[in-house]
């Protein structure tokens, strides 16, 4: 032991590094795999995979295989994570080699030791990113500051080949097709996915799919083709699809509904993420559903549990989206006076609702709809408002500094409100707020509280979405300049979807909790967390 302890030193350091970056993800996967091995015989495919991985880590792992025979609790706690997490991948290939020698008891002891080690590391390494709350749900009291337990989402790490490999493995395990990137990506955005609308994600999917519920397949296609677009619409569609999933769900024998249903939902969520990255509102809705499912008591009968879940989802839609829209409309109508000229951008379902309600309440105003290429969503808003009878003007976003001297107020919708007060919305919103500020026109943002998100962001680069670059191609005067843009090596097309507006451009945020300044968003988030 002493010899291996000496040689372990430098190995441990690099193991610690590796553990920080990959260990946590691996350990979760390893645990699942070990559970499967306990139930059934190991598949030869994984064996080969692990043997290849072990060969890479042979140099680092060879010395660590020596101490694995003994439970690692004997070592000092800080040193535990390194050999433990290194022994985890090492134990994988070691298992096929040592399978006859290891007994179930030793595996159990190892797993218990690993859990203890992780609990210890959690206490010692509080606040380090990359931690997973794997050892049970941390129900920290609200007065204690939560450690940063967020894992960097995969969809902003596309330039990291390891992350891509892991994603590919996860999707393969869940039997979901991996969508490949399309076209030349601008170097500033090489960390994001860029998909083509012409290559739908269901091309490699077998029909009927055994893993994914058909309602989810349909929803995913609607997202990826842009048929269902807009934050509220996507969330509501998602919740309805989940209701259908729950209705069709039956608990398999020897399983608990609360745990199995959550596991069933995971591949659906990965599939939807592949079709189009989840929005903040969808993320919050999914969190709510998962919480409700896991709170189902185990003695509840299946029918009762299902109806309870369906009612909860109905309640969520009703309260957070429909009633919130009504409350926001009531507050906003106070802000609209007769003779106003209101500028709106793109198509926000909430802002359209407010304007229609104000018109019903006999307010006299006219609307200027600003639109931008390539989505041209403003035309949809224009149709709805004209149908109502509101007098409208329509311009493109490049003409906004021409039209702004006529405007008295600007109403904007939001995709999400971030914890540092920034407003994440359709690309172009920050521009409108900027020009409105230059002309001293008040900017009001309307947003329901379920879109408030705990992320922070200061620019539109790190976390964004890239749409199909071919959308920018257009024919003017008979010539299509960019038709062959892929052949030209130094030409790139950038089709951003979101941008962030700094809080100093926004004068007021109207939410269902009232009218708050942009900087009060973290207060609302905290209050919500305490309630829940």
């Amino acid at each position, binding site marked *: 032991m002493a010899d291996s302890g000496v040689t372990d030193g430098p190995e441990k350091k690099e193991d610690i590094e590796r553990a920080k970056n990959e260990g946590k993800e691996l350990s979760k996967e390893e645990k699942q795999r070990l559970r499967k091995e306990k139930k059934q015989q190991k598949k030869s495919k994984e064996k080969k995979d692990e043997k290849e991985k072990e060969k890479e880590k042979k140099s680092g792992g060879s010395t660590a295989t020596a101490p694995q025979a003994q439970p690692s609790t004997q070592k000092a706690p800080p040193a535990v994570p390194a050999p433990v997490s290194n022994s985890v991948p090492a134990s994988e290939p070691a298992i096929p080699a040592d399978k006859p020698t290891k007994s179930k008891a030793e595996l159990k002891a190892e797993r218990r030791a690993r859990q203890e080690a992780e609990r210890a590391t959690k206490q010692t390494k509080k606040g380090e990113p990359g931690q997973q709350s794997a050892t049970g749900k941390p129900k920290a009291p609200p007065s204690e500051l939560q450690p940063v337990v967020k894992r960097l989402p995969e969809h902003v790490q596309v330039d990291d080949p390891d992350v891509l490999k892991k994603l590919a493995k996860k999707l393969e395990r869940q039997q979901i097709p991996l969508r490949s990137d399309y076209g030349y990506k*601008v*170097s*500033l955005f090489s960390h994001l996915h860029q998909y083509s609308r012409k290559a739908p994600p269901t091309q490699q999917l077998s029909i009927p799919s055994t893993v994914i519920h058909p309602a989810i397949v349909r929803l995913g296609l609607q997202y990826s083709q842009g048929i269902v677009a807009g934050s509220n619409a996507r969330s509501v569609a998602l919740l309805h699809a989940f209701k259908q999933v729950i209705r069709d769900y039956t608990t398999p024998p020897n399983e608990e509904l609360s745990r199995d249903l959550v596991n069933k939902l995971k591949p659906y969520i990965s599939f939807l993420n592949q079709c189009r990255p989840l929005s903040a509102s969808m993320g919050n809705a999914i969190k709510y559903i998962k919480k409700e499912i896991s709170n189902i008591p185990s003695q509840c009968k299946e029918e009762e549990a299902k109806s309870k879940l369906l009612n909860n989802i109905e309640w969520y839609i009703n309260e957070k989206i429909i009633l919130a829209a009504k409350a926001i409309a009531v507050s906003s109508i106070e802000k609209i006076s007769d003779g106003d000229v209101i500028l709106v951008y793109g198509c926000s379902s909430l802002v359209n609702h407010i304007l229609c309600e104000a018109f019903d309440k006999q307010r006299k105003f006219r609307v200027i709809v600003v639109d*931008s*290429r*390539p989505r041209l969503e403003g*035309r949809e808003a*224009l*149709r709805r408002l*004209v149908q109502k009878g509101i*007098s*409208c*003007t*329509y*311009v*493109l*976003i*490049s*003409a*906004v*500094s*021409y*039209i702004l001297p006529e405007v008295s107020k600007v109403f904007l919708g939001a995709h999400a409100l971030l914890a540092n007060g920034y407003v994440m919305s*359709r*690309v*172009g919103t*920050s*521009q409108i707020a*900027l*020009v409105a500020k*230059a002309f001293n026109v008040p900017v009001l943002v309307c947003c329901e509280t379920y879109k408030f998100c705990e992320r922070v962001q200061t*620019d*539109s*680069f790190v976390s964004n979405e890239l749409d199909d670059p071919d959308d*920018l191609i*257009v024919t*003017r005067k008979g010539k299509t*300049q*960019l038709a062959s*843009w892929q052949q*030209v*090596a*130094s*030409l*790139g*097309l*950038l*089709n*951003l979807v979101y*941008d*962030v507006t700094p809080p100093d451009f926004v004068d007021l945020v109207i939410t269902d909790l009232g009218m708050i300044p942009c900087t009060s968003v973290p207060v609302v988030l905290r209050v919500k967390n305490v309630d829940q």
Partner: protein
Amino acid sequence: MPGPDKETDLTERLAAFLSDLKRGGSGTGPLRSSAETARETTALLRRITAQARWSSAGDLMEIIRKEGRRMTAAQPSETTVGNMIRRVLKIVREEYARSRGSSEEADQQESLHKMLTSGGLSEENFRQHFAPLRANVIEAINELLTELEGTTDNIAMQALEHIHSNEVIMTIGRSRTVEAFLKNAGRKRKFHVIVAECAPFCQGHEMATNLSKDGIETTVITDAAIFAVMSRVNKVIIGTQTVLANGGLRAVNGTHTLALAAKHHSTPLIVCAPMFKLSPQFPNEEDTFHKFVSPHEVLPFTEGEILSKVNVHCPVFDYVPPELITLFISNIGGHAPSYIYRLMSELYHPEDHEL
């Protein structure tokens, strides 16, 4: 015999030029660059000087003013026409003054003292006849033409002083001056250009394809993404249609937003504009400042019934105030926007500001 032929030939050419101007402005005819318009105007004025009948400088100036008024009325938004006419008028005044022997400076400055002492100062009615005046004026106009031909190259030569390697430069729409500027710098330095496409006509696409063919790393973005990407941009280089007398710009629509975004991020805004774009107009004429074209590119006829219930606007130009501009690069060097009024007084005579 040659006399009336020359005259009809001249009137024909004038008529052809006027109809070209009228068609070009609506966007349907061939889009000519401002440099071409300036050259054609100057060539026409030279022809008028050579072929029209005039005996004194005053007559010549009257003829030029009359033709000039017709030309500017044909296309008010094409200000280079008016600028060239004023330049030529100034040339005539200078040549006349030189022929008379008096110094130019004395005539130029309108001080209060001079106005009081000399009484009717501008009794300078240019009635004296000088034989070599015609030849002198034509020679001076030729010099002006040579200067016009070299403007783009002069501006492009200054490119290396302003662009370093690994820069990210942003531009909007299509400007031949900026294109030449960037291509010249691209021969020696490697940098990245972001082009905003400038809807609804999307001239930015053509600019991007031209730049990328020369090997410059180019990205096309939509107008809506200007503020989003501005934080990574080092410089904004734009062209303009006109430089106004207060140092402001009348540029393609979307430029004001670009200038505001650049100001917010403290990014320098550089305008590449040759001297013939400098116009003695001020931006306060609201109704004559803006020009509109058919909005069928904004909201096409395929949208159906709502078209009759909706107002659609498609302005062509934007006003950019001089506070947002960092530098003007012209064929005679770089200037701050506050210096523009001085340049104007050197190019045009104050009495010619109203044609």
